[in-house]
């Protein structure tokens, strides 16, 4: 097929009709801006060829111009099999269709619709559908260029026919796909999509879970059974232990051993008791001997003590008078020393009075020294007070103050300024006196010099000899009034301060400032004496203090009985003499005090010695009396003899008891033996108690174990274990069987897939052959990977890449290239179908688009390529034939 011309009317924006010029073989480019109607024209071609003329589908309604009263008409001129056909269809209003062949109408209406399809090799489907075959594959509408080509049934048939004419059919491919799908579907029952794990709700997962469940159950029952076995074993051991413990022979033997041990212990304890009695008797006899001996000793000690006390009494009675004399002597010495101490204290008292007088004189002497200083200060203060009064009187006479002077200066400045202004504005009187006129010219009464020049501020009278009287009067000026006002103000200020000139005011102000400085100096002097502004009060106070000092000095002289104050040297000599006298007195008093203390101590010793001797004498006498009460001198011998006899008898009794005790000790068991028997008894009793406790514990444990065993046995744990073991074995076999089945399914699926891929690879060779040069234009060395139904699955460069993982631009470029290849393959087999690309190659970079243009140009050598684009500049380098849209308003639509 070769499209030669297209005309439309009532279509989209072409309500008034338009046609496209410039169709040719090879590449045709319709480059126009957006909304020019390129896509509308593309849709119009499709509609004209593939839609029935009486169809009113939404697409056709949308294709018609808005509000147009005309039918939507498309007329397409094309060449097919060496003949030129014109198909013209009007839709929606007055629908019609006509088909002309080489200028001769050959069909109308429905026959025209179907005749075109016959020409293009298309077959209507069921109902009103039409599989547009290769056209659907090679005509790419706006936005569809990104999608990989997906041939419909007719296109697939066309492609297959083309391929099979070259390499033969792919035998069994469809059945293999069915098997593949069926096996894959079967695998999906067992495995997840990744086939890494059993599918969660699938039979393999269930079998695995089942096996696991029964393994766990088996382990659980095994554990219980093992526990039961242990309980059986434990019960057996405990029963044997109980049997051993409850053996009556052993029990009887233990009881008899205990009874025997208890008898032995009782015998030993009895013997020990007798031994203790003998020991007590022996001890008692020994105590009797000791007691009798003690009484004899006490008696003899009493006799000796009486004799000794009598000797001490005699010695003390002889010593007592000496002690009394020594005491009296000590008392006398102490009294003498006390009298001497009193004399020294009186002398010290007199000395203190004299020292006080000397201190008063010392104070008076200091006062006398301060009195002179106060007198000098009083004089200075009085002079300063006089000077202050004088300065204040002079200041009171000066009325000029700094502000007054400032005001006057200000007025002076204003007046000077005003004078300068007046002089500048005034006429200048200039007089040149010639030599012969010297002295004849007078200005304002003064003789004019040779040359005179001055401004005329006030009326000036100039007289020239007697020749003339000239009066020059300045013109009236407002500044003169102000000048007058300033003069009056200055005069008033001068008058107010009692001066006649500003200079005098300045002089008085200077005088005032000097007086104020003097006053400040006087006040500063007063402040050095800590006197405020009123010096008179300070002067009064100084005078009063001076009088008090005089009075105090007089009082001190009177107290000391002197008429004048001593000098400092005199007073110091007096104070030194007094100090020496005091030191001597104090030293004497200290010596006397020490002597007094020693005498007092000697007195106390003497008193103590005397009183001790008296007390001791009384004590001895009392003891003698008491001892005589116990044993009079007359009873001494008789009592001694009786006590000696008593001792002898006690010693005989003790010997008897000791012999008995020794005999008993020979026969009685020692404490170690008793303890051994005691320990044995306790041990046997403990053993018996332990045995009974153990029997009780064992009976308790056996009861408990029995209960546990009965409970476990009652649960049927053994039966449950066997059941679980069988279930587990069954489950594991089932799991293994399913695993084997899954492995077989995988193997079958993989084998089918591999064979299918190999077959497909061979089958697609023609497509690859046609595609290779196109693909090489853009992607050198790249191979396309095709799936079922010519689907592009990926490309292989260095490695396989999934198609959907490629960039949008690459996807589009590959999709277009595949279409070009398919078109080339069909063209080679006589199925020449134009390739139409509407707004394609959107994402091509500069390099890629050039290569795409190369590919399009390559395809254009075999078939017509129509490219619709809005990218005028980018598609310029594509070359080819330029298509133009012409409005029929200019040319008129071909009928």
């Amino acid at each position, binding site marked *: 097929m070769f499209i030669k011309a297209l005309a439309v009317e009532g279509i989209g924006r072409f309500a008034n009709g338009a046609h496209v010029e410039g169709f040719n073989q090879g590449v045709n480019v319709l480059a126009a801006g957006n909304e020019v109607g390129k896509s509308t024209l593309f849709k119009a071609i499709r509609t004209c060829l593939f839609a029935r003329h009486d169809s009113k589908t939404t697409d056709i309604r949308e294709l018609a111009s808005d509000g147009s009263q005309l039918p939507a008409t498309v007329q397409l001129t094309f060449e097919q099999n060496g003949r030129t056909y014109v198909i013209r269809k009007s839709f929606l209003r007055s629908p019609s269709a006509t088909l002309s062949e080489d200028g001769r109408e050959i069909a109308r209406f429905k026959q025209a619709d179907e005749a075109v399809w016959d020409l293009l090799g298309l077959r209507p489907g069921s109902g009103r559908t039409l599989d547009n075959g290769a056209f659907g594959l090679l005509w790419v509408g706006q936005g569809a260029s990104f999608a990989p080509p997906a041939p419909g049934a007719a296109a697939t048939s066309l492609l297959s026919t083309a391929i099979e004419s070259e390499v033969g059919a792919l035998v*069994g491919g469809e059945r293999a796909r069915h098997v593949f799908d069926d096996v894959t579907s079967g695998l999906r029952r067992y495995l997840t999509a990744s086939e890494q794990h059993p599918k969660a709700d699938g039979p393999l997962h269930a079998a695995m879970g089942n096996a696991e469940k029964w393994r766990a159950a088996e382990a659980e029952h095994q554990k219980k*059974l093992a526990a039961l076995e242990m309980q059986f074993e434990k019960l057996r051991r405990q029963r044997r232990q109980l049997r051993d413990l409850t053996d009556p022979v052993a029990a009887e033997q233990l009881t008899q051993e205990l009874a025997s041990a208890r008898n032995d212990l009782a015998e030993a304890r009895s013997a020990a008791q007798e031994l203790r009695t003998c020991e007590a008797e022996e001890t008692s006899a020994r105590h009797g001997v000791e007691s009798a001996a003690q009484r004899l000793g006490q008696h003899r000690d009493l006799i000796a003590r009486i004799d000794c006390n009598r000797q001490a009494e005699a010695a003390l009675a002889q010593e007592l008078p000496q002690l009394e004399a020594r005491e009296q002597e000590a008392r006398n010495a102490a009294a003498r020393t006390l009298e001497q101490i009193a004399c020294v204290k009186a002398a010290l008292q007199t000395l203190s009075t004299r020292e006080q007088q000397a201190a008063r004189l010392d104070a008076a002497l200091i006062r006398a020294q301060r009195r002179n200083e106060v007198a000098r200060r009083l004089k200075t203060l009085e002079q300063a007070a006089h000077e202050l009064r004088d300065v204040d009187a002079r200041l009171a006479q000066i009325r000029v103050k700094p502000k007054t002077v400032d005001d006057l200066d200000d007025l002076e400045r204003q007046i000077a300024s005003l004078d300068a202004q007046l002089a500048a504005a005034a006429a200048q009187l200039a007089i040149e006196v010639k030599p012969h006129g010297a002295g004849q010219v007078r200005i304002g009464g003064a003789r004019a010099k040779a040359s005179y020049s001055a401004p005329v501020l006030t009326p000036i009278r100039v007289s020239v000899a007697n020749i003339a009287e000239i009066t020059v009067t300045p013109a009236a000026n407002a500044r003169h009034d102000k000048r007058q006002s300033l003069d009056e103000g200055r005069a008033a200020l001068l008058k107010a301060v009692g001066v006649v000139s500003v200079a005098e005011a300045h002089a008085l102000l200077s005088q005032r400032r000097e007086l104020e400085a003097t006053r400040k100096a006087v006040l500063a002097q007063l402040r050095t004496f800590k006197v405020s502004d009123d010096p008179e009060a300070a002067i009064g106070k100084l005078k009063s203090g001076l009088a008090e000092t005089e009075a105090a000095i007089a009082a001190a002289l009177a107290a000391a009985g002197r008429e004048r104050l001593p000098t400092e040297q005199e007073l110091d000599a007096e104070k030194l003499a007094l100090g020496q006298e005091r030191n001597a007195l104090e030293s004497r008093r200290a010596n006397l005090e020490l002597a007094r203390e020693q005498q007092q101590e000697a007195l106390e010793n003497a008193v103590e010695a005397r009183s001790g001797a008296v007390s001791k004498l009384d004590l001895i006498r009392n003891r003698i009396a008491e001892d005589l009460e116990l044993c009079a001198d007359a009873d001494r011998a008789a009592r001694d003899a009786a006590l000696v006899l008593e001792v002898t008898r006690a010693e005989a009794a003790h010997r008897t008891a000791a012999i008995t005790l020794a005999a008993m000790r020979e026969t009685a068991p020692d404490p170690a033996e008793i303890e051994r028997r005691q320990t044995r008894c306790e041990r046997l009793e403990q053993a018996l108690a332990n045995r009974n406790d153990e029997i009780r514990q064992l009976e308790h444990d056996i009861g408990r174990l029995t209960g546990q065993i009965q409970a476990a046995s009652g649960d*049927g744990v053994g*039966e449950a274990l066997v*059941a679980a073991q069988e279930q587990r074995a069954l489950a594991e076999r089932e799991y293994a069987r399913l695993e*084997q089945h899954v492995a077989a399914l995988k193997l079958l699926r993989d084998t089918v897939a591999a064979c299918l891929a190999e077959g497909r690879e061979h089958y697609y060779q023609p497509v690859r052959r046609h595609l290779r040069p196109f693909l090489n234009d853009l992607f050198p060395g790249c191979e396309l990977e095709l799936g079922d139904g010519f689907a592009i699955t990926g490309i292989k460069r260095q490695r396989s890449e999934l198609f959907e993982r490629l960039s949008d631009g690459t996807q589009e470029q590959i999709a277009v290239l595949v279409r070009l290849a398919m078109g080339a393959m069909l063209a080679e087999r006589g199925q020449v179908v134009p390739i139409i690309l509407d707004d394609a190659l959107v994402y091509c970079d500069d390099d890629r688009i050039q290569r795409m243009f190369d590919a399009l140009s390559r395809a254009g050598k075999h078939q017509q390529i129509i490219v619709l684009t809005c990218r005028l500049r980018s598609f310029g380098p594509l070359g080819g034939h330029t298509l133009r849209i012409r409005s029929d308003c200019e040319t008129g639509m071909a009928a």
Partner: protein
Amino acid sequence: MRFVHSADWQIGKVFKQFGAKEEALRQARLAAIERLGDFARANGAAHILVAGDVYDNEAPSPVTLRAPIERMKRFPDIHWHLLPGNHDPHRPEGLWDRLVQLGLPAHIHLHLTPVPVALDDAAFLLPAPLTRKTELDDITAWMDKAPTPQGVLRIGIAHGSITNFGSEGEAANPIDPGRPKSAGLDYLALGDWHRTLQVGPAAWYAGTPEADRPGSQERGSALLIEIAGAGAPAAVTPFATGAYRWVTRTERLSGGNELADLEQRLRHEPDLSQLILRLQLEGTLPISAYAELQRCLLDLEAAVFHLDVNQSALAARPSEADLEAIDFDGVLRRCADRLRGMIDDPAQADETRRSAEEALVGLYLRAVDSKETA
């Protein structure tokens, strides 16, 4: 003196591989007790000796424990003598004590200690109960010196393996084959072997009353014993008690034509509905015949009580016709050829070859189905 000798009831045995049919087999073991009772009653035997393994497990569930007792209670005129075996040894507080605690009727006797027990005035039973699963010593040794009155029958009952007599028995509990002679026994009733077997002039294994495994006793049975008096020989008469037959057949197949014969042979087995058939298939079959065999086995499985087929030794090898049935050419045929190559390749692992075999069968079935659909 006439009595019945039985053993290895193994009440409570589980048959999980039978799925929903398990309960029928469990009930059959209980029904065998009733058949024993009926037989004893019909033949004037007052005693039934059960030589061990009354229960399959020493910790049965309460229902399992009671079930045989309830069956025996229906025969109060028969004395049932039960002996612990290696499956149900007597241990303190074990199942036998549980039975005692249940309160057994007087005609059910538990022989839990090795002491002579008078069956009647003319016969004494010398039991050798097992108190553990495995005894290293001969527990019948005590019988040699067991005192019994002069002139009475001495009947021994024990559970174990006759020494030096093969290894089919389950337990290692040894029993001296000379025991009947050394202990002066008129008869030694043995249990443990699931097969009726005479092991000496007066020593027999009774077998189980209801068969329970393939390759062993085909049908359950017991023994009727008649002894005229002390020293007289025992007349032993086996009789059938089992409901189900456990049959094992090994069949070798080499072509599709044998399938019909096989099916016929198997279908001629008596009491198909009570038949538990274990079929060992060996040989090689074309895939088409293999597929046909599977259909045939399905039919057979529906006919018998249970069919257990072991096809691990049966190989499916594709014939040329099988391959052509898949396709003459094209993708599937290449696929089939490739799988056949894997099956025939001895270098491939066994597992891979089995997978390839199953895959090829799967391919065959799918390909044939798709053709038929087409």
